[in-house]
């Protein structure tokens, strides 16, 4: 029967694809996942969830009454990133921080003005709320940035570092996190279609006994598998296109790279996604188990371990090592690049190669588990 397994007859394949298409069109849940879910995800990540840290509430105590201290306090108050709440003493601010009302506090120490005059400036104190590390980092960085600029404006001479760091945020100067989130959403949606839907539809054929009838006709398993891959590949690409158009039109995400590169990257990502879906369905033959397996092996890693929500470089080493096994990790960075920066073929090629390797592995597993047999 191994000879049978490799056969590909165009007429039979066309009939199977037609059947699959009718089923997709008739099944509202498929269309829901392919076209409504992406819209929902984009709106949640585009408007609802924002990792941007504009206007952090910060407490400030000015213990010095010199003009310099007032000038620095004024610079801090003027920053659009900080919302300053002032207090004459430290204690009430400490309580406010414990109560989660403010994220950081700044103390401009006594004798600050005099120390500037002496050309030996005292450090200002910044305490941040470490229970929210992301925001804490932002707060500290903002204060530091404002302080640096202020020091420069004071025309500091000897005793003050003459080299100042001048930060520029390339490509995403306003640091809008939705520029990052939209490529991530595309990844999630494509994982859902490639892995979850594919796993479900093949498992459904096992469950309903239709595959049994199919196997008693002259179709080969290659034809059967191809008839699942092609429609869901098209569906995945369609959904990706919808996400892209929405991202550009509604959320103003730029597409600085080429459409061709986007197409190539998305196609490469669908290979491991579909392969995993097929493998799961062949191994479980049960819709319920297949959906659980798809969530745990496809959806959750794409969500948590791909760099979509959590920065990979800030994960513990062990977890960082695990992310190398998540195909989505090779999709999100080039996808972000193609949207926000432009075509970077060297990087794309490396990532595409990684995705295809995973794809080949999953297909091999699927091929070895899918048998034309009920044994």
């Amino acid at each position, binding site marked *: *029967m191994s000879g*049978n397994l490799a056969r590909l007859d165009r*007429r*039979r394949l*066309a*009939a*199977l694809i*037609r*059947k699959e298409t*009718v*089923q997709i069109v*008739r*099944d509202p849940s498929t269309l829901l996942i392919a076209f409504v879910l992406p819209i929902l995800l984009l709106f949640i990540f585009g408007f609802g969830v924002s990792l941007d840290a504009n206007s952090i509430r910060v407490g400030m105590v000015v213990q010095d009454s010199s003009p310099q201290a007032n000038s620095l306090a004024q610079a801090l108050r003027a920053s659009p990133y900080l919302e300053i709440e002032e207090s004459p003493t430290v204690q009430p601010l400490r309580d406010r921080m414990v109560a989660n009302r403010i994220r950081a506090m700044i103390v401009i120490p006594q004798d600050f003005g005099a120390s500037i005059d002496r050309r030996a400036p005292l450090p200002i104190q910044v305490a941040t709320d470490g229970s929210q590390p992301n925001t804490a980092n932002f707060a500290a960085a903002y204060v530091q940035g404002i302080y640096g600029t202020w020091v420069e404006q004071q025309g500091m001479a000897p005793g003050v570092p003459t080299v100042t760091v001048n930060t520029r945020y390339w490509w995403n100067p306003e640091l809008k996190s939705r520029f990052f989130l939209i490529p991530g959403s595309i990844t999630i949606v494509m994982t859902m279609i490639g892995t979850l839907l594919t796993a479900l539809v093949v498992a459904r054929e096992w469950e*309903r*006994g*239709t595959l*049994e*009838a*199919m*196997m*008693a*006709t*002259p*179709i080969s398993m290659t034809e059967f598998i191809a008839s699942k891959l092609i429609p869901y590949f098209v569906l995945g690409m369609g959904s990706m296109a919808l996400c892209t158009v929405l991202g550009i039109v509604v959320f103003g995400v730029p597409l600085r790279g080429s459409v061709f590169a986007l197409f190539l990257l998305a196609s490469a990502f669908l290979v491991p996604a579909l392969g995993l879906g097929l493998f799961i369905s062949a191994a479980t033959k049960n819709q319920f188990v297949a959906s659980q397996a798809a969530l745990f092996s496809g959806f959750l890693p794409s969500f948590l371990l791909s760099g979509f929500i959590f920065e990979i470089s800030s994960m513990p080493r062990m977890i960082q090592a695990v992310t190398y096994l998540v195909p989505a990790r090779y999709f999100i960075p080039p996808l972000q690049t193609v949207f926000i920066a432009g075509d970077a073929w060297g990087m794309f090629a490396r990532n595409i190669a990684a995705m295809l390797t995973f794809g080949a592995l999953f297909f091999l597993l699927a091929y070895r588990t899918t048998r*034309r*047999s*009920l*044994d």
Partner: protein
Amino acid sequence: MIDPVAIAKGVVKRFASQTALDGVDITITPGKITGLVGPDAAGKTTLIRILAGLMAANDGEIAVLGGAPGTNLEQLGYMPQRFGLYEDLSVIQNLDLYAELRGLSKEEKPATYGRLLDFTDLARFQDRQAGKLSGGMKQKLGLACALVKTPRLLLLDEPGVGVDPISRRELWAMVKELTAEGIGVLWSTAYLDEAAKCDSVTMLNDGKLIYSGDPSGLTDRMKGRVFNASSDTLDRRHLLTQLLGDNEVLDGTIQGSSIRLLTRSEHPSLPGIRLDPLPPRLEDGFIEVLGGGPGGTSALADAYSRFDHNDVPAIEAHALTKKYGDFTAANQVSFTARPGQIFGLLGPNGAGKSTTFKMLCGLATPTSGTCSVAGHSLKHAGPAARQSLGYMAQKFSLYGDLSVEQNLNFFAGAYGLKKAAARDAIDKVVDIFELSSRLRTNAGVLPLGYKQRLALACAVMHEPPVLFLDEPTSGVDPVMRREFWVHINGLVSRGVCVLVTTHFMEEAEYCDDILLIYRSEQIATGSPDDLKAQASRIAGLSDPTMEDAFIALIEASNVDTKNPRKAA
């Protein structure tokens, strides 16, 4: 002799825990219907799957269409038990799919489709989704898909299961016609009346071949040992109990007002009983091979409470009507069942039996009309009414992941039995149904016969005066079925009222009263003998069987109906 289209010798198939087939031989001849007969889990489906190339045998020589199984799939038609239809595709889309897969040429298509749609009478439903067809129509569509390119070998896996006698007869006629074209057919079935019509039968039990050859060969052995037994002093139920307890008797079933008896010898000594010889049937032979039927007394009934025959009807339905949108699923159904009576609800698939059943046990609210159980109105005293009934669902509806013991505990609790009472009730049913060796087994993996026993056990633990049984014996082997009916008969003699639905017409004979439902209407009521008499009056049949009567009454109702609605 013509070369067989499929031949297998010494087929062995082992699964992890059991041997499904143990040295089975089968020959399928072109132009003939070969019956594959046996109870559920006998190995029928496994054998068919091996012949279709869907499973590999562990041992044995198998040649299908002149090659190894699975090599000549273009010439094979296969209809699995669940028909293999895509429910969200229309009738015509299903046909199209199979036509393309089997390589039907464009030129042949119009003629073939015309013939198949005509043959299956599905032309009117071409655009309907397969999932919305009735069981009988799905079965015909399944057959059409298997036949779309005329095969040389047709494998049918229990095409008659869960299908009413009319659809079953139509299907048989269709397949019979095919054999005239030289197709070799394998027809697997648990119905012995179907098997008796086959050209040859292969009988399996527990994975072993128990008979192979002409069905008459097995029937003939029983000649002179089958009688119609009656008595002037005993009613049929007591007579059956007495006869089944007799050593001379191998098997007995109720038929009309008397008993159909299979004896060990041709000249049984049964004093005081009138015996008239009857022609034997295949089932008699099968029962003998299986070692005879069960004894006549039911331990369950002996331990059951006795209910007095008072004037309160056990079940009373008055003008029950259920509408789903504009579709009337049951219209004006009225009947009364007394304590100590078996009441049968019969009708083709989709006639409204299940709807009526659900209203009676409180699972569906009637659109209009009333019903009560043991004097408690389901509308006003639902909990009291439900407490008075025991319900055994059509499909196995116990918790498959719980052990036998856990299921019993759960149902004892659900029916409100207190600790000590629950313990007693469980001990009692475990003993009666011989479940003690399987207490820790998960219910889902029990053999079908044991599942059925467990389901009955769960339904009767609280000793309700009314029992609702929805197709309780479908798929169960004849011996188990008889054992089941011994319990039912015993319970009825203690004053329990039993409401039952079934597709086995010989089981309908056990009923005291039958209500025949067709197209949501109540078309006939009466005892089995009344219905047969009505049927013979209408159709001019002499001495009709219950199945003849069923079909005649339904066909008569088709003619009567002035505005026939579409059969759906």
